[in-house]
């Protein structure tokens, strides 16, 4: 960062900056970032990032490092959860500086709300990949796209129809509003699915994993970071869900983690986003928390699903 600015807002001065107190309240942050003057060396201000619970642990960890860095000691970052929808709403209404989201804003703000998505600037900070998983005793380790579609639309209801044990299939889904489900539907199934009678819906990945491991005949999908021996990981059209296959573009079931700002980010917010994108974070914290570094992706994909080679 060569572009160093100072902010002259008294409320966000030295006193108010220790910890997550009122200084981080959303109403103050825009004005804090607005009144910049190049008289001092350090950036000061506060950032409120809210939204996706999937992305929250990463943002929190990076925020801790960021605030510990002496270069940015004047900046307070507060991170909250609440879900992608909440994050997008709050950043769009100016209540938060950054809205964390698992999916593109265009997919949430539709119809009458579509202009709201246009105001938001997308910062893709990481990639999360998902794999279909099943109860360990179903006797299947690979499903084609068509088989997955048939299972999740209720056409196939027994594992023996896809070459497995004679066991009824129990679908463990995410709520229809969930970003994880949208990703799975968009990139694994290619179609929207309805909530079938008897299917289970859970929003938390931990609960989903527990249920898959315990319920005979269960099928679900989980982020790669949740995979272990308690569940059977299913290959997708013969492709194993691994980080290498995601970055090279062979495995399609993945999504960006977005950090949206309303308009171009202010210097304070930009400093944080740049820090997030820096090599030391992407290659350490991002990997450590089982996200895929955005920098390692060899392909790019837009909101409509068009893939381009980088």
């Amino acid at each position, binding site marked *: 960062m060569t572009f160093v600015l100072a902010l002259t807002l008294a409320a966000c001065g030295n006193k108010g900056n220790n910890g997550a107190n009122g200084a981080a309240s959303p109403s103050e942050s825009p004005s804090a970032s607005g009144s910049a003057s190049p008289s001092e060396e350090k950036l000061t201000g506060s950032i409120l990032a809210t939204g996706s619970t999937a992305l929250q642990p990463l943002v929190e960890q990076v925020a801790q490092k960021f605030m510990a860095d002496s270069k940015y000691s004047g900046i307070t970052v507060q991170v909250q959860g609440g879900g992608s*929808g909440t994050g997008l709403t709050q950043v769009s209404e100016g209540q938060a500086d950054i809205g964390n989201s698992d999916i593109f804003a265009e997919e949430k703000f539709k119809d009458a709300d579509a202009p709201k998505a246009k105001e938001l600037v997308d910062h893709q900070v990481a990639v999360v990949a998902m794999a279909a998983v099943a109860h360990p005793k179903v006797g299947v380790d690979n499903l084609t796209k068509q088989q997955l579609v048939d299972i999740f639309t209720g056409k196939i209801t027994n594992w023996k129809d896809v070459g497995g044990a004679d066991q009824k299939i129990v679908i463990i889904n995410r709520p229809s509003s969930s970003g994880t489900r949208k990703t799975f539907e968009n990139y694994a199934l290619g179609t929207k699915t*309805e909530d*079938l009678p008897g299917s289970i819906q859970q929003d938390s990945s931990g609960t989903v994993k527990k249920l898959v491991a315990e319920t005979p005949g269960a099928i679900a999908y989980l982020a790669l970071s949740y995979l272990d021996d308690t569940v059977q990981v299913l290959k997708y059209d013969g492709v194993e869900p691994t980080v290498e296959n995601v970055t090279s573009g062979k495995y399609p079931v993945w999504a960006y983690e977005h950090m949206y700002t309303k308009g171009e980010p202010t210097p304070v917010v930009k400093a944080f986003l740049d820090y997030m994108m820096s090599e030391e974070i992407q290659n350490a914290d991002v990997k450590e928390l089982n996200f895929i570094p955005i920098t390692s992706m060899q392909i790019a994909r837009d909101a409509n699903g068009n893939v381009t080679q980088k």
Partner: protein
Amino acid sequence: MNLSYKEVKRDTAVQASKPFPKHRIEEWRGKAYVYVCILVLIVTIFSIVYFIAVRGLTPFVSGGVGVGEMLFGKVWDPDAEQPLYGALPFLYGSFATSLLAAAIAAPLGFCAAIFMTEMMPKLGRTVLQPAIELLAGIPSVVYGFVGLSVIVPFLRHTFPGQGIGIMAGAIVLSIMILPTVTTIATDALRSLPSGLKEGSYALGATRWQTISRIILPTTLPSLLTGIVLGIARAFGEALAVQMVIGNAPHIPDSLFESAATLTSIITLSMGNTTLGSAHNNALWSLALILLLMTFVFVFIVRLLERRAKR
């Protein structure tokens, strides 16, 4: 305000001649404090009701959804091309779980109350009552997790089905509302005039005859109040139920099949939807239904209390 009676009296005697004697000021101060508290309370309640009503009525006012469609529609599919907002499965799930929970908790609560008041008052007062009241202090997420780890696997092994469903939800809720039912029943039994019991014993009635013919009929309205309050609590409980009920938006065929309640569907999707979207507004409508149901429960409790006084 905190002065003892004696001090107040002395002050009065000393300052009686002054235009604003101290006790007057104290009285005025106390009154002002109480009025401010009441005002805050009323404003809070009305703003909550107003907020939920405005948001919850939006789908009906804007013409997107009919009241009948919402209350009696069987299909809930807010993310479809043609969104459907039928909340009947949730109403059914909410009523089924809370009534079933009350049916389980009521006999347990009554028996515990009778044991604590009639049979072993000392043990009841010192050990049993604190133990039951302790149940009220356990966070609901703990109940949910215990339900998911103990009750759901037990039901899955014992009955056909996935274990998850209305029965699991009802069992978890019954434990949660047990303190309410028991405490109110115990208070009612303790406040019973001892002459009634003694008269019954004097006429040669056995303990069981006294309990079943005298004590239970006399305290019935209070016991019912406890049950209704328990149902109201069960109706509004979200997290624990959400974890064990499965959340499929359908009316289930059995007690062991995935179902949903009003609260579970609200908690599942509220964070994922953006404020002001049709889906989000429909969730507020569900919240409004919940609120109205709570009013109904409060009304029933008042009716019962009036009957008890007669």
